């Protein structure tokens, strides 16, 4: 469960008006049309619609939430609730490289604390941090189902397995 600080009051009507003619890329719109012909209800395509937004934009702004609400026949408040429930939807921009290091039990036993320390030092970031240049963000995550190849870290969607601190630093170095 994520908790949300609602720092700004959302005016749904204003957001709806502002985004009334927003569209994703034609391929993404076509993909959503296809899914909506298969799924029993429009609302049930909300997760794939949110993924499509995040893949295009990198994160999900209030405006895009209003778009998703319209596209899925759902209330904006519902979309806001869903986006904040799932940890992988970003409500603010993350780095170009979003580094997720597993901190759970199997990785811990195989040396995750050393990986986390090395990565934190290298990037100069703590859990949840985004670098000022916008290139890096760091998150300590729960089990990534890579336990038998622990310790693991995932950068954007690529999983890196059987890491030692040196390997982890090398992988980051290659992205610089």
């Amino acid at each position, binding site marked *: *469960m994520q908790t949300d600080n609602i720092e700004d009051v959302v005016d749904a009507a204003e957001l709806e008006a502002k985004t009334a003619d927003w569209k994703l890329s034609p391929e993404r719109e076509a993909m959503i049309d296809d*899914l909506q012909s*298969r*799924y*029993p*209800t429009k*609302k*049930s*395509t*909300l*997760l*794939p619609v*949110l*993924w499509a937004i995040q893949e295009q934009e990198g994160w999900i702004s209030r405006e895009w939430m209003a778009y998703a609400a319209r596209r*899925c026949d*759902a209330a904006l408040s*519902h979309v806001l*609730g*869903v986006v904040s*429930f*799932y*940890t*992988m*939807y970003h409500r603010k921009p993350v780095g170009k490289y979003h580094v*997720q290091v597993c*901190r*759970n*039990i*199997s990785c*811990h*036993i*195989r040396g995750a604390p050393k990986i986390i320390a090395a990565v934190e030092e290298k990037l100069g970031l703590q859990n949840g941090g985004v670098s000022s240049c916008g290139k890096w963000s760091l998150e300590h*995550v*729960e*089990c*990534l*189902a*890579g*336990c*038998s*190849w*622990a310790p693991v870290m*995932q950068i954007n*969607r*690529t*999983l890196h397995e059987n890491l030692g601190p040196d390997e982890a630093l090398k992988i980051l170095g290659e992205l610089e």
Partner: protein
Amino acid sequence: MTKVLFEHRGKKGVDTFEGWEAVGGFEALKRALKMKPEEVIEEVKTSGLRGRGGAGFPAGVKWGFVPKNTGKPIYLCINADESEPGTCKDRVLMEELPFMCLEGALIAAYAIGAKLAFWYIRGEFDLSERVMSRAVEVLREKGVIGKDVFGSGWDIDLVVHRGAGAYICGEETGLISSVEGDKGQPKIKPPFPAVEGAFRCPTIVNNVETLAAVPWIINKGGLAYAALGTEKSKGTKLFSVSGAVAKPGVYEVEMGYPMHDLIMNECGGPQFGKTLKAIIPGGSSVPVLPAKIAMEMNLDYESVQAAGSLLGSGGVIVIDESQSMPELLAILGRFYAHESCGQCTPCREGTGWGSRLLDRVAEGEGKDQDMPTLERIARFMTGTTICFLASSMAMPIQSFFKHFRHEFEALLPVTTEAKGD
């Protein structure tokens, strides 16, 4: 040892449509489509196949719960959420044998009368998701997903539905909420999903590994499957072994295989000749056992239970002497606190406050009443909530305290008097 799931693992091209066909793939589906749905269910009942997602419920029996002729659509959800710490078996099945997994799912869909199936895959999965999505596309091109499959007159559609980072979506009713486009919050049972699930229609949720065994069962017969394993735990099971062993990995063994052999043979023994301290045999939610007890038990539902734990998902987490048990328990506490969906007070507060107490104990800043408080929290969060996530934190607390109390006490101030609740 007979392999059911890994019979064809590693064969060249077996992850392609043609490769899967070359090893006899889709024969089971074709055979099933010539049978009556009830006959398919009967065959799976005969096999004794039990759910591999954790609860171990007989698959054929569950399929039989779907009410007939309600006029409502029926849905199949394939549970590929795989988020239980220590568990990484479904990933291997999907990445290496995607068409076997899909064939099993299609047979199940036919047996229960579903026209639409959701392949619910956790959002973090990258390769598995790409492989599965591509495999689904191929099956659509080949007409194996679509109208009139293999000329049988049966229609089916299947979509890959990607989660977005929430352990609780692995719980079957949380998964259903997520498929419906909601927060992945579990729902009160009954009604059970088989009667009223997704979109308030009959829905069967099965784990990937459960369904992956179905083609073999249809090909070789339920009796052949039932001949494997033990009397009550039939067939084979995947164990994903992690932690302090030389060769962690995912291994298929017959039910009833000795833990000792799994660790010493398949996994090459302890890593760097370390001494083992403890083993969690079925994913992070089940009770931990001292290594000595765990190494003497066999890997079937009944034996593991008799030894004081549960077979769960088959995620075997091996812990050596160098690890601090309070630290490991604090890690699990943080996990459950992070993943509680927040609906039930005993779970939301119990995981939250429990985790804070576990953290401070592990950091050596605990107070003398912290252990009794944690025991009380664990008791109050067991059986008082909508789903089992709360109990999944209680079981580790209780078992870590039971077997490794001295490690916790060593970190706490000396207690002057024993106080009751």
